[in-house]
Protein backbone atom coordinates (compact mmCIF):
# COMPACT_ATOMS: atom_id res chain seq x y z
CA UNK A 1 0.00 0.00 0.00
CA UNK A 2 2.76 2.44 0.97
CA UNK A 3 4.65 1.44 -2.14
CA UNK A 4 1.59 2.13 -4.25
CA UNK A 5 1.06 5.55 -2.68
CA UNK A 6 4.72 6.40 -3.10
CA UNK A 7 4.61 5.45 -6.78
CA UNK A 8 1.46 7.43 -7.23
CA UNK A 9 2.97 10.48 -5.57
CA UNK A 10 6.03 10.19 -7.73
CA UNK A 11 3.90 10.03 -10.84
CA UNK A 12 1.89 13.08 -9.82
CA UNK A 13 5.08 14.97 -9.08
CA UNK A 14 6.48 14.16 -12.50
CA UNK A 15 3.26 15.22 -14.18
CA UNK A 16 3.27 18.51 -12.26
CA UNK A 17 6.84 19.03 -13.38
CA UNK A 18 5.89 18.36 -16.96
CA UNK A 19 2.96 20.69 -16.67
CA UNK A 20 5.18 23.40 -15.28
CA UNK A 21 7.51 22.73 -18.16
CA UNK A 22 4.72 23.35 -20.63
CA UNK A 23 3.50 26.60 -19.07
CA UNK A 24 3.59 29.70 -21.27
CA UNK A 25 5.99 32.55 -20.59
CA UNK A 26 4.47 35.38 -18.55
CA UNK A 27 5.78 37.96 -21.06
CA UNK A 28 4.07 36.15 -23.89
CA UNK A 29 0.75 35.96 -22.03
CA UNK A 30 0.93 39.66 -21.18
CA UNK A 31 1.61 40.71 -24.77
CA UNK A 32 -0.95 38.32 -26.22
CA UNK A 33 -3.59 39.53 -23.77
CA UNK A 34 -2.99 43.19 -24.63
CA UNK A 35 -3.33 42.40 -28.33
CA UNK A 36 -6.43 40.27 -27.78
CA UNK A 37 -8.19 42.88 -25.64
CA UNK A 38 -7.32 45.64 -28.09
CA UNK A 39 -8.77 43.68 -30.99
CA UNK A 40 -11.79 42.53 -28.98
CA UNK A 41 -12.80 46.08 -28.10
CA UNK A 42 -12.13 47.52 -31.58
CA UNK A 43 -15.51 48.18 -33.21
CA UNK A 44 -14.47 47.19 -36.73
CA UNK A 45 -13.63 43.63 -35.67
CA UNK A 46 -16.65 43.32 -33.47
CA UNK A 47 -19.04 44.08 -36.31
CA UNK A 48 -17.23 42.33 -39.16
CA UNK A 49 -19.29 39.18 -38.90
CA UNK A 50 -22.68 40.83 -39.02
CA UNK A 51 -22.13 43.21 -41.92
CA UNK A 52 -23.28 42.76 -45.47
CA UNK A 53 -22.25 44.48 -48.67
CA UNK A 54 -25.17 46.40 -50.12
CA UNK A 55 -23.77 47.75 -53.35
CA UNK A 56 -21.95 45.33 -55.66
CA UNK A 57 -19.83 48.15 -57.10
CA UNK A 58 -18.64 49.19 -53.63
CA UNK A 59 -18.00 45.97 -51.69
CA UNK A 60 -16.24 47.90 -48.96
CA UNK A 61 -19.42 49.87 -48.26
CA UNK A 62 -21.12 47.62 -45.72
CA UNK A 63 -23.95 48.01 -43.26
CA UNK A 64 -24.97 45.74 -40.37
CA UNK A 65 -27.04 42.77 -41.55
CA UNK A 66 -29.92 43.50 -39.16
CA UNK A 67 -30.11 47.10 -40.36
CA UNK A 68 -30.19 45.94 -43.97
CA UNK A 69 -32.95 43.42 -43.18
CA UNK A 70 -34.97 46.05 -41.30
CA UNK A 71 -34.71 48.54 -44.15
CA UNK A 72 -35.74 45.89 -46.68
CA UNK A 73 -38.70 44.85 -44.53
CA UNK A 74 -39.77 48.47 -44.14
CA UNK A 75 -39.53 49.04 -47.88
CA UNK A 76 -41.60 45.96 -48.68
CA UNK A 77 -44.26 46.91 -46.12
CA UNK A 78 -44.39 50.51 -47.37
CA UNK A 79 -44.66 49.38 -50.99
CA UNK A 80 -47.50 47.00 -50.05
CA UNK A 81 -49.39 49.69 -48.15
CA UNK A 82 -48.95 52.21 -50.97
CA UNK A 83 -50.20 49.64 -53.49
CA UNK A 84 -53.25 48.94 -51.29
CA UNK A 85 -54.03 52.63 -50.87
CA UNK A 86 -53.60 53.16 -54.60
CA UNK A 87 -55.82 50.22 -55.53
CA UNK A 88 -58.63 51.18 -53.17
CA UNK A 89 -58.40 54.86 -54.18
CA UNK A 90 -58.90 55.94 -50.57
CA UNK A 91 -60.58 59.24 -49.71
CA UNK A 92 -58.73 62.19 -48.07
CA UNK A 93 -60.05 61.27 -44.58
CA UNK A 94 -58.44 57.86 -44.78
CA UNK A 95 -55.11 57.46 -42.90
CA UNK A 96 -53.65 55.82 -46.00
CA UNK A 97 -54.44 58.85 -48.16
CA UNK A 98 -50.98 60.39 -47.80
CA UNK A 99 -49.43 57.07 -48.87
CA UNK A 100 -51.68 57.09 -51.92
CA UNK A 101 -50.38 60.53 -52.82
CA UNK A 102 -46.80 59.35 -52.33
CA UNK A 103 -47.56 56.45 -54.67
CA UNK A 104 -48.96 58.86 -57.27
CA UNK A 105 -45.87 61.03 -57.08
CA UNK A 106 -43.67 57.98 -57.49
CA UNK A 107 -45.69 56.86 -60.49
CA UNK A 108 -45.25 60.25 -62.14
CA UNK A 109 -41.53 60.29 -61.40
CA UNK A 110 -40.95 56.78 -62.71
CA UNK A 111 -43.23 56.92 -65.76
CA UNK A 112 -41.77 57.69 -69.21
CA UNK A 113 -42.44 61.16 -70.61
CA UNK A 114 -45.11 59.91 -73.03
CA UNK A 115 -47.24 58.48 -70.20
CA UNK A 116 -47.00 61.38 -67.76
CA UNK A 117 -49.86 63.31 -69.39
CA UNK A 118 -52.20 60.34 -69.00
CA UNK A 119 -51.24 60.00 -65.36
CA UNK A 120 -51.84 63.68 -64.63
CA UNK A 121 -55.21 63.45 -66.37
CA UNK A 122 -56.09 60.41 -64.23
CA UNK A 123 -54.97 62.15 -61.04
CA UNK A 124 -56.88 65.33 -61.95
CA UNK A 125 -60.04 63.19 -62.19
CA UNK A 126 -59.25 61.71 -58.80
CA UNK A 127 -58.79 65.15 -57.25
CA UNK A 128 -62.14 66.18 -58.71
CA UNK A 129 -63.84 63.13 -57.18
CA UNK A 130 -62.15 63.86 -53.87
CA UNK A 131 -63.31 67.49 -53.94
CA UNK A 132 -66.84 66.27 -54.63
CA UNK A 133 -66.56 63.77 -51.77
CA UNK A 134 -65.36 66.43 -49.30
CA UNK A 135 -68.14 68.80 -50.32
CA UNK A 136 -70.74 66.10 -49.75
CA UNK A 137 -69.19 65.37 -46.34
CA UNK A 138 -69.40 69.06 -45.38
CA UNK A 139 -73.16 68.95 -45.93
CA UNK A 140 -73.52 65.86 -43.71
CA UNK A 141 -71.56 67.28 -40.78
CA UNK A 142 -73.26 66.82 -37.38
CA UNK A 143 -72.29 67.56 -33.77
CA UNK A 144 -71.88 70.63 -31.62
CA UNK A 145 -70.86 74.01 -32.88
CA UNK A 146 -67.22 73.76 -31.84
CA UNK A 147 -66.56 70.35 -33.40
CA UNK A 148 -68.39 71.37 -36.57
CA UNK A 149 -66.29 74.48 -36.86
CA UNK A 150 -63.10 72.53 -36.31
CA UNK A 151 -64.09 69.94 -38.88
CA UNK A 152 -65.14 72.61 -41.34
CA UNK A 153 -61.76 74.31 -40.99
CA UNK A 154 -60.00 71.05 -41.61
CA UNK A 155 -62.16 70.23 -44.59
CA UNK A 156 -61.66 73.71 -46.00
CA UNK A 157 -57.93 73.26 -45.74
CA UNK A 158 -58.12 69.89 -47.46
CA UNK A 159 -60.29 71.41 -50.18
CA UNK A 160 -57.78 74.18 -50.80
CA UNK A 161 -54.98 71.65 -51.16
CA UNK A 162 -57.06 69.46 -53.47
CA UNK A 163 -57.98 72.45 -55.63
CA UNK A 164 -54.35 73.41 -55.85
CA UNK A 165 -53.34 69.90 -56.90
CA UNK A 166 -56.22 69.71 -59.39
CA UNK A 167 -55.00 72.93 -61.02
CA UNK A 168 -51.45 71.59 -61.16
CA UNK A 169 -52.53 68.38 -62.89
CA UNK A 170 -54.78 70.17 -65.38
CA UNK A 171 -52.10 72.74 -66.17
CA UNK A 172 -49.58 69.96 -66.80
CA UNK A 173 -51.96 68.26 -69.25
CA UNK A 174 -52.61 71.48 -71.16
CA UNK A 175 -48.91 72.38 -71.31
CA UNK A 176 -48.16 68.92 -72.70
CA UNK A 177 -50.81 69.38 -75.41
CA UNK A 178 -49.26 72.71 -76.25
CA UNK A 179 -45.62 71.61 -76.27
CA UNK A 180 -45.50 67.95 -77.18
CA UNK A 181 -48.69 66.76 -78.84
CA UNK A 182 -49.76 69.74 -80.97
CA UNK A 183 -46.67 71.89 -81.49
CA UNK A 184 -47.61 72.87 -85.06
CA UNK A 185 -51.19 73.79 -84.28
CA UNK A 186 -50.27 76.26 -81.60
CA UNK A 187 -46.93 77.62 -82.73
CA UNK A 188 -46.51 77.06 -86.46
CA UNK A 189 -48.38 77.66 -89.67
CA UNK A 190 -50.19 74.72 -91.30
CA UNK A 191 -48.06 72.29 -93.26
CA UNK A 192 -47.41 73.06 -96.97
CA UNK A 193 -50.08 71.77 -99.35
CA UNK A 194 -47.62 69.64 -101.28
CA UNK A 195 -47.31 67.30 -98.31
CA UNK A 196 -50.96 67.21 -97.34
CA UNK A 197 -52.53 67.18 -100.80
CA UNK A 198 -50.28 64.92 -102.81
CA UNK A 199 -50.35 61.76 -100.71
CA UNK A 200 -54.13 61.27 -100.70
CA UNK A 201 -54.16 60.98 -104.48
CA UNK A 202 -51.60 58.24 -104.35
CA UNK A 203 -53.46 56.51 -101.60
CA UNK A 204 -56.71 56.77 -103.50
CA UNK A 205 -55.09 54.97 -106.41
CA UNK A 206 -53.81 52.48 -103.94
CA UNK A 207 -57.37 52.00 -102.71
CA UNK A 208 -58.60 51.27 -106.25
CA UNK A 209 -55.63 48.97 -106.91
CA UNK A 210 -55.19 46.78 -103.80
CA UNK A 211 -52.19 44.98 -105.28
CA UNK A 212 -50.21 48.22 -105.61
CA UNK A 213 -46.94 48.18 -103.64
CA UNK A 214 -46.05 51.41 -101.83
CA UNK A 215 -42.97 53.26 -103.03
CA UNK A 216 -40.35 54.30 -100.46
CA UNK A 217 -41.40 57.95 -100.87
CA UNK A 218 -45.01 57.14 -99.99
CA UNK A 219 -44.27 55.47 -96.64
CA UNK A 220 -42.92 58.47 -94.66
CA UNK A 221 -45.66 60.72 -96.00
CA UNK A 222 -48.28 58.21 -94.97
CA UNK A 223 -46.71 57.77 -91.52
CA UNK A 224 -46.60 61.52 -91.05
CA UNK A 225 -50.29 61.83 -91.85
CA UNK A 226 -51.16 59.01 -89.49
CA UNK A 227 -49.14 60.37 -86.60
CA UNK A 228 -50.48 63.86 -87.18
CA UNK A 229 -54.06 62.65 -87.22
CA UNK A 230 -53.52 60.61 -84.07
CA UNK A 231 -51.88 63.59 -82.34
CA UNK A 232 -54.79 65.83 -83.34
CA UNK A 233 -57.30 63.35 -82.05
CA UNK A 234 -55.40 62.83 -78.83
CA UNK A 235 -55.08 66.55 -78.23
CA UNK A 236 -58.77 66.99 -78.89
CA UNK A 237 -59.70 64.20 -76.48
CA UNK A 238 -57.44 65.59 -73.81
CA UNK A 239 -58.83 69.10 -74.28
CA UNK A 240 -62.39 67.83 -74.12
CA UNK A 241 -61.62 65.83 -70.99
CA UNK A 242 -59.90 68.80 -69.34
CA UNK A 243 -62.73 71.17 -70.24
CA UNK A 244 -65.26 68.70 -68.85
CA UNK A 245 -63.30 68.47 -65.62
CA UNK A 246 -62.99 72.25 -65.38
CA UNK A 247 -66.72 72.53 -66.04
CA UNK A 248 -67.50 70.10 -63.25
CA UNK A 249 -65.10 71.89 -60.95
CA UNK A 250 -66.64 75.26 -61.71
CA UNK A 251 -70.07 73.81 -61.19
CA UNK A 252 -69.03 72.62 -57.74
CA UNK A 253 -67.49 75.99 -56.98
CA UNK A 254 -70.71 77.67 -58.19
CA UNK A 255 -68.89 79.52 -60.93
CA UNK A 256 -71.51 79.06 -63.59
CA UNK A 257 -70.96 82.50 -65.06
CA UNK A 258 -67.83 82.59 -67.20
CA UNK A 259 -67.16 86.14 -66.01
CA UNK A 260 -66.61 84.76 -62.52
CA UNK A 261 -64.31 82.05 -63.76
CA UNK A 262 -60.84 82.79 -62.51
CA UNK A 263 -58.11 83.83 -64.87
CA UNK A 264 -56.29 80.54 -64.64
CA UNK A 265 -59.24 78.52 -65.96
CA UNK A 266 -59.91 81.13 -68.65
CA UNK A 267 -56.33 80.85 -69.79
CA UNK A 268 -56.57 77.06 -69.95
CA UNK A 269 -59.83 77.27 -71.88
CA UNK A 270 -58.22 79.70 -74.30
CA UNK A 271 -55.39 77.28 -74.86
CA UNK A 272 -57.80 74.45 -75.58
CA UNK A 273 -60.16 76.29 -77.88
CA UNK A 274 -57.71 76.63 -80.88
CA UNK A 275 -57.10 72.89 -80.76
CA UNK A 276 -60.79 72.09 -80.85
CA UNK A 277 -61.53 74.73 -83.51
CA UNK A 278 -58.67 73.60 -85.72
CA UNK A 279 -59.81 70.01 -85.51
CA UNK A 280 -63.35 71.01 -86.40
CA UNK A 281 -62.19 73.11 -89.36
CA UNK A 282 -59.67 70.72 -90.75
CA UNK A 283 -61.88 67.87 -89.76
CA UNK A 284 -63.11 67.12 -93.28
CA UNK A 285 -59.79 67.04 -95.11
CA UNK A 286 -57.62 65.60 -92.38
CA UNK A 287 -60.13 63.08 -91.20
CA UNK A 288 -60.84 61.89 -94.70
CA UNK A 289 -57.14 61.39 -95.30
CA UNK A 290 -56.82 59.57 -92.04
CA UNK A 291 -59.87 57.45 -92.77
CA UNK A 292 -58.57 56.41 -96.17
CA UNK A 293 -55.20 55.43 -94.81
CA UNK A 294 -56.83 53.53 -92.03
CA UNK A 295 -59.10 51.75 -94.47
CA UNK A 296 -56.08 50.67 -96.48
CA UNK A 297 -54.08 49.37 -93.56
CA UNK A 298 -56.93 48.15 -91.40
CA UNK A 299 -55.44 49.73 -88.29
CA UNK A 300 -56.84 51.79 -85.42
CA UNK A 301 -60.43 50.77 -85.95
CA UNK A 302 -61.64 52.48 -82.82
CA UNK A 303 -60.21 55.82 -83.87
CA UNK A 304 -61.73 55.44 -87.30
CA UNK A 305 -65.14 54.99 -85.73
CA UNK A 306 -64.63 58.14 -83.70
CA UNK A 307 -63.78 60.04 -86.87
CA UNK A 308 -66.92 58.77 -88.57
CA UNK A 309 -68.98 59.93 -85.65
CA UNK A 310 -67.40 63.34 -85.87
CA UNK A 311 -68.08 63.49 -89.60
CA UNK A 312 -71.70 62.71 -89.04
CA UNK A 313 -71.89 65.45 -86.44
Amino acid at each position, binding site marked *: MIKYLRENLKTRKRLRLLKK*YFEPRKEFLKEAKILFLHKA*TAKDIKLT*RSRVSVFPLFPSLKIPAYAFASVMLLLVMSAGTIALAEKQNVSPENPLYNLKRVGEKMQVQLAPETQKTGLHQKFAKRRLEEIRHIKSEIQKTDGDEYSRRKLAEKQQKTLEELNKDFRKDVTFVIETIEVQIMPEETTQAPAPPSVTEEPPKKIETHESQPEHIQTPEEIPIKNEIISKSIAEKRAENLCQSVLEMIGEHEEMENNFDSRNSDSNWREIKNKCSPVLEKNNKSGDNGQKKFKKIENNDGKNKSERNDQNDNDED
Partner: protein
Amino acid sequence: MDLFTTDFNKEAEKLKNGDKNAAGKIFNHFSPKIFSFFMTRTAQRETAEDLTQEVFLKLLDKIGTFDKNLGGFSSWFWQIAKNTLIDHYREKKSFPISDPDIAAKKSLIANSGNMQKTAIEKSEVEEIIKIVKKFSDEEQEIFSLHFLSDLSYKELSKMLNKSEGNLRVVVHRIIQRIRKSIK
Protein backbone atom coordinates in the same frame (compact mmCIF):
# COMPACT_ATOMS: atom_id res chain seq x y z
CA MET B 1 -23.96 25.92 -11.91
CA ASP B 2 -21.80 24.42 -14.60
CA LEU B 3 -19.06 26.95 -15.23
CA PHE B 4 -17.93 25.17 -18.35
CA THR B 5 -21.16 25.36 -20.26
CA THR B 6 -23.00 28.30 -18.76
CA ASP B 7 -20.65 31.01 -17.62
CA PHE B 8 -18.47 31.10 -20.69
CA ASN B 9 -21.56 31.21 -22.87
CA LYS B 10 -22.46 34.43 -21.10
CA GLU B 11 -18.92 35.72 -21.49
CA ALA B 12 -19.02 34.82 -25.18
CA GLU B 13 -22.24 36.80 -25.65
CA LYS B 14 -20.59 39.76 -23.93
CA LEU B 15 -17.51 39.37 -26.10
CA LYS B 16 -19.71 39.73 -29.17
CA ASN B 17 -20.50 43.24 -27.95
CA GLY B 18 -16.83 44.05 -27.37
CA ASP B 19 -16.92 43.63 -23.59
CA LYS B 20 -13.35 44.01 -22.34
CA ASN B 21 -13.91 42.20 -19.03
CA ALA B 22 -15.44 39.20 -20.74
CA ALA B 23 -12.53 39.10 -23.18
CA GLY B 24 -10.10 39.23 -20.26
CA LYS B 25 -11.83 36.38 -18.41
CA ILE B 26 -11.85 34.18 -21.50
CA PHE B 27 -8.19 34.89 -22.20
CA ASN B 28 -7.08 34.23 -18.62
CA HIS B 29 -8.98 30.95 -18.47
CA PHE B 30 -8.11 29.48 -21.83
CA SER B 31 -4.69 30.85 -22.83
CA PRO B 32 -2.47 28.63 -20.56
CA LYS B 33 -4.48 25.52 -21.41
CA ILE B 34 -4.39 26.16 -25.10
CA PHE B 35 -0.71 26.95 -24.99
CA SER B 36 0.00 23.67 -23.17
CA PHE B 37 -2.07 21.82 -25.73
CA PHE B 38 -0.07 23.32 -28.60
CA MET B 39 3.17 22.83 -26.72
CA THR B 40 2.62 19.11 -26.31
CA ARG B 41 1.48 18.75 -29.90
CA THR B 42 4.15 20.86 -31.63
CA ALA B 43 7.02 20.53 -29.18
CA GLN B 44 8.16 24.06 -30.05
CA ARG B 45 7.60 27.00 -27.77
CA GLU B 46 7.60 29.64 -30.54
CA THR B 47 5.17 27.64 -32.61
CA ALA B 48 2.92 27.06 -29.61
CA GLU B 49 2.95 30.81 -28.87
CA ASP B 50 2.14 31.70 -32.47
CA LEU B 51 -0.67 29.18 -32.61
CA THR B 52 -2.12 30.36 -29.29
CA GLN B 53 -2.20 33.93 -30.54
CA GLU B 54 -3.71 32.80 -33.83
CA VAL B 55 -6.49 30.91 -32.04
CA PHE B 56 -7.50 33.99 -30.06
CA LEU B 57 -7.57 36.14 -33.19
CA LYS B 58 -9.67 33.48 -34.90
CA LEU B 59 -11.99 33.57 -31.92
CA LEU B 60 -12.64 37.27 -32.53
CA ASP B 61 -13.26 36.63 -36.21
CA LYS B 62 -15.71 33.82 -35.56
CA ILE B 63 -17.40 34.97 -32.36
CA GLY B 64 -20.25 36.46 -34.44
CA THR B 65 -21.17 32.96 -35.63
CA PHE B 66 -21.24 31.44 -32.13
CA ASP B 67 -24.70 30.29 -31.11
CA LYS B 68 -25.09 29.25 -27.49
CA ASN B 69 -28.14 27.15 -28.39
CA LEU B 70 -25.98 24.87 -30.52
CA GLY B 71 -23.48 24.01 -27.76
CA GLY B 72 -21.12 25.33 -25.13
CA PHE B 73 -18.56 28.00 -25.85
CA SER B 74 -15.68 25.96 -24.47
CA SER B 75 -16.23 23.00 -26.80
CA TRP B 76 -16.66 25.38 -29.69
CA PHE B 77 -13.45 27.23 -28.81
CA TRP B 78 -11.44 24.04 -28.36
CA GLN B 79 -12.64 22.91 -31.76
CA ILE B 80 -11.14 26.10 -33.23
CA ALA B 81 -7.87 25.26 -31.47
CA LYS B 82 -7.85 21.73 -32.85
CA ASN B 83 -8.61 22.94 -36.38
CA THR B 84 -5.82 25.50 -36.10
CA LEU B 85 -3.40 22.73 -35.18
CA ILE B 86 -4.55 20.61 -38.13
CA ASP B 87 -4.06 23.60 -40.45
CA HIS B 88 -0.61 24.11 -38.98
CA TYR B 89 0.36 20.50 -39.67
CA ARG B 90 -0.87 20.80 -43.22
CA GLU B 91 1.00 24.02 -43.93
CA LYS B 92 4.22 23.60 -42.00
CA LYS B 93 4.57 19.82 -42.00
CA SER B 94 5.55 20.13 -38.37
CA PHE B 95 5.79 17.13 -36.12
CA PRO B 96 3.75 16.40 -33.03
CA ILE B 97 5.21 14.98 -29.87
CA SER B 98 4.47 11.46 -31.10
CA ASP B 99 6.85 11.96 -33.99
CA PRO B 100 9.89 9.77 -33.44
CA ASP B 101 12.20 12.57 -34.54
CA ILE B 102 14.39 13.38 -31.59
CA ALA B 103 14.68 17.00 -32.73
CA ALA B 104 11.26 17.66 -31.35
CA LYS B 105 12.28 16.69 -27.87
CA LYS B 106 15.54 18.65 -28.10
CA SER B 107 13.69 21.71 -29.28
CA LEU B 108 11.16 21.34 -26.51
CA ILE B 109 13.81 21.34 -23.84
CA ALA B 110 16.06 23.94 -25.46
CA ASN B 111 13.22 26.45 -25.84
CA SER B 112 11.89 26.16 -22.35
CA GLY B 113 12.76 29.31 -20.41
CA ASN B 114 10.25 29.15 -17.63
CA MET B 115 11.84 26.83 -15.11
CA GLN B 116 15.11 26.01 -13.53
CA LYS B 117 16.85 23.82 -16.02
CA THR B 118 18.50 21.52 -13.62
CA ALA B 119 19.87 18.31 -14.88
CA ILE B 120 17.54 16.25 -12.70
CA GLU B 121 14.44 18.01 -13.86
CA LYS B 122 15.49 17.75 -17.44
CA SER B 123 16.02 14.07 -17.13
CA GLU B 124 12.68 13.61 -15.36
CA VAL B 125 10.83 15.56 -18.03
CA GLU B 126 12.61 13.68 -20.77
CA GLU B 127 11.63 10.44 -19.11
CA ILE B 128 7.93 11.38 -19.10
CA ILE B 129 8.09 12.58 -22.70
CA LYS B 130 9.70 9.31 -23.68
CA ILE B 131 6.85 7.40 -22.08
CA VAL B 132 4.16 9.63 -23.61
CA LYS B 133 5.69 9.25 -27.05
CA LYS B 134 4.89 5.56 -26.89
CA PHE B 135 1.17 6.28 -26.50
CA SER B 136 -1.25 6.29 -29.40
CA ASP B 137 -2.28 9.65 -30.94
CA GLU B 138 -5.60 9.58 -29.14
CA GLU B 139 -3.98 8.77 -25.77
CA GLN B 140 -1.47 11.59 -26.29
CA GLU B 141 -4.28 14.02 -27.00
CA ILE B 142 -6.18 12.94 -23.89
CA PHE B 143 -2.96 13.10 -21.85
CA SER B 144 -2.16 16.65 -22.97
CA LEU B 145 -5.71 17.93 -22.57
CA HIS B 146 -6.35 16.28 -19.20
CA PHE B 147 -3.00 16.55 -17.44
CA LEU B 148 -1.50 19.66 -19.04
CA SER B 149 -4.52 21.72 -20.09
CA ASP B 150 -6.56 20.65 -17.04
CA LEU B 151 -9.71 19.80 -18.95
CA SER B 152 -12.26 17.87 -16.91
CA TYR B 153 -13.80 14.58 -18.04
CA LYS B 154 -16.97 16.43 -18.93
CA GLU B 155 -15.10 18.89 -21.11
CA LEU B 156 -13.12 16.14 -22.75
CA SER B 157 -16.29 14.16 -23.32
CA LYS B 158 -17.84 17.06 -25.23
CA MET B 159 -14.69 17.81 -27.15
CA LEU B 160 -13.80 14.31 -28.21
CA ASN B 161 -17.33 12.87 -28.43
CA LYS B 162 -16.51 10.09 -25.96
CA SER B 163 -18.34 9.02 -22.84
CA GLU B 164 -16.91 10.13 -19.51
CA GLY B 165 -16.61 6.48 -18.43
CA ASN B 166 -14.53 5.65 -21.46
CA LEU B 167 -12.26 8.63 -20.82
CA ARG B 168 -11.77 7.66 -17.18
CA VAL B 169 -10.62 4.23 -18.31
CA VAL B 170 -8.16 5.74 -20.80
CA VAL B 171 -6.77 8.19 -18.20
CA HIS B 172 -6.42 5.40 -15.64
CA ARG B 173 -4.52 3.30 -18.16
CA ILE B 174 -2.21 6.24 -18.93
CA ILE B 175 -1.39 6.76 -15.24
CA GLN B 176 -0.74 3.05 -14.79
CA ARG B 177 1.71 3.02 -17.68
CA ILE B 178 3.56 6.10 -16.48
CA ARG B 179 3.77 4.72 -12.94
CA LYS B 180 5.14 1.42 -14.14
CA SER B 181 7.69 3.16 -16.34
CA ILE B 182 9.10 5.48 -13.66
CA LYS B 183 9.48 2.86 -10.90
